[in-house]
C-alpha cells in the first residue's frame, strides 16, 4: 500500500532524470546517428504490435472473401483471365524489345542492362505521424531487404527503404519532406530533382529556370543518377508550372503516379548490381 509520505528522489528530480535520458537518446540518434542497431533491434521486438494492428483488417478481408458468392468469383476469374491475356501480350512485345535493345547496346559497345529481381511486400502499418511519410512493410533483412532499396508499386516509384528489422522494414515515401529524387523528363531529357513537400499528392521540382522547356503533362522518369533508384521507372507527371518572374526559380509542381495515400501491395526491387539478394519465403498457395 502506498504510504502518505513520499520517499526516494523528489518528483522534480525524477522528471529531470527522465528528461536527461530522453534528451541523450535524441542527441545520440539525431546528431551522432549511433542508434541504428538499437532501432533495428527494437523494431524487431515491436513487430508483433504492427502485425496485431492489421489482424482485424485481415480477418475482415478473409470474412469478405468467404462470403463472396460463386458467381462473383467466376466473374472475377473471367475478368482476371482477360487481363492476364492482355498483359501477356504486352510482355511478349516487351521481351522482344528488350532482346533487341540488348543486341543494339552490344553493337554500340555499351553495357547490357541486367535484369533486376523483385519481391512483393504488403504494407502492415502506416506511420500516423503526419510530419513524415513512412510505411512499414512485412519484409525485413530475413528476406534480403537492405537499407536504401528502391520500392515501387504497380504505377511507379514509391520510395526507398530507410531502416530494416528482421521481418519488417520502414519505407520512406518520395513525398516526405526529407526526400529528394533525381528525375529525367521523358520528352525533353531535362534532368530535375523532385523534392517531397509533405503532401502525398504533390512533389516540387527545385531550381528550375523560368526559361525551362518543361511543360504541363510531361512525364518524369527516374534518372538512375545517385545510385538508389534504377533508371527509367515512371515517377511523376508535371501538374502545374508557375513562371512568376518575381521569384528566382519557376515553381513546378508534379503529381506522383504511385498512389501514395493508399499503398497496399508494394514491390521491392533488387537492382542487378545490388550486393544483397532476395530470400523468398517458401511458396505458399495464398488464395486471397
Amino acid at each position, binding site marked *: 500500500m*502506498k504510504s502518505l509520505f513520499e520517499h526516494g528522489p523528489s*518528483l522534480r528530480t*525524477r*522528471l529531470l*532524470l*527522465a*528528461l536527461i*535520458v*530522453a*534528451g*541523450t*537518446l*535524441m542527441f*545520440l*540518434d*539525431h546528431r551522432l546517428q549511433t*542508434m541504428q542497431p*538499437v*532501432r533495428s533491434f*527494437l*523494431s524487431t521486438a*515491436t513487430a508483433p*504490435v*504492427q502485425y*496485431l*494492428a*492489421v489482424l*482485424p*483488417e485481415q480477418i475482415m478481408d478473409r470474412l469478405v472473401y468467404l462470403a463472396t458468392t460463386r458467381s462473383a468469383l467466376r466473374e472475377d476469374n473471367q475478368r482476371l483471365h482477360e487481363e492476364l491475356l492482355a498483359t501477356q501480350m504486352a510482355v511478349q512485345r516487351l521481351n522482344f524489345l528488350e532482346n533487341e535493345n540488348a543486341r543494339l547496346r552490344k553493337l554500340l559497345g555499351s553495357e547490357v542492362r541486367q535484369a533486376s529481381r523483385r519481391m512483393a511486400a504488403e504494407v502492415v*502499418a*502506416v*506511420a*500516423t*505521424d*503526419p*510530419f*513524415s511519410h*513512412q510505411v*512499414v512493410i512485412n519484409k525485413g533483412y530475413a528476406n534480403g531487404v537492405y537499407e536504401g532499396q528502391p520500392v515501387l508499386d504497380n504505377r511507379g516509384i514509391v520510395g526507398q527503404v*530507410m*531502416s530494416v528489422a528482421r521481418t519488417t522494414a*520502414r519505407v520512406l515515401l518520395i513525398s516526405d*519532406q*526529407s526526400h529528394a529524387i533525381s528525375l529525367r523528363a521523358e520528352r525533353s531529357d531535362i534532368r530535375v530533382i523532385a523534392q517531397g513537400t*509533405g503532401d502525398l499528392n504533390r512533389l516540387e521540382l527545385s531550381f528550375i529556370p523560368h526559361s525551362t522547356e518543361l511543360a504541363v503533362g510531361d512525364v518524369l522518369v527516374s534518372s538512375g543518377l545517385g545510385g538508389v533508384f534504377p533508371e527509367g521507372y515512371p515517377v511523376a507527371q508535371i501538374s502545374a508550372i508557375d513562371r512568376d518572374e518575381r521569384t528566382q526559380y519557376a515553381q513546378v509542381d508534379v503529381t506522383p503516379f504511385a498512389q501514395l*495515400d*493508399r499503398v497496399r501491395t508494394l514491390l521491392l526491387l533488387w537492382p542487378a548490381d545490388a550486393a544483397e539478394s532476395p530470400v523468398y519465403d517458401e511458396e505458399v498457395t495464398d488464395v486471397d
Partner: protein
Amino acid sequence: MWIKSGLFALLLSYVLALVLMVMPLPTVLEPWRPDWVSLVLLYWLLAVPHRVGFGTVLVLGLLTDILMGSTFGVYAVALVLIAYPVLRHFQRIRHYSFMQQALVIGILIFVKRIIVYELEHVLNDAVFNLPYLYPVLSSAVLWPWLFLVMRRFRRRYAIR
C-alpha cells in the same frame, strides 16, 4: 511476491494502446484518431501514480518513437513533460467532474502535440498543418467513456 497484482493487465493495456495507435484506419477517420497511448498513460498516472511513473512513461515514449519512426526521444520527452503536472496534481484532477477532466486532458494532449511538433520542426523541418491538432478534440471527447471503461478494467483485474 515480485509480480504485483494486475501487472499483466497493466501491460496488456499498454500493448492495446500501441496497437490502436498504429492500426490502419479509413482515410476519413485517420486525422481524428484519438491519442490512445497518451490517454491510457494519463489514466494510469491518475489512478495508480505510485506504480506508473516516469520510468513507464519513458519506456512507452521510446516504443512510440520506434513505432512512429520518429527520432528517438521525441515522444518520450513530450510524454514525460505532460506526465509531470499529472503526477504533481493527481489528487486534485481525480476529484474534477468529467467535463473538467476532459478539458484538462485536452489541454495536456494539446501541449504534448505542440512539443512533438516543435521538436520535429527543429530536428527534421516539419511543417505545421491544422489536422495535426484534431486528435486533441477527439481525445477530450473520448476521455469520459475511456475513463469509465478503464475503471472497470482496473477493478476487474485489481490493479492497485
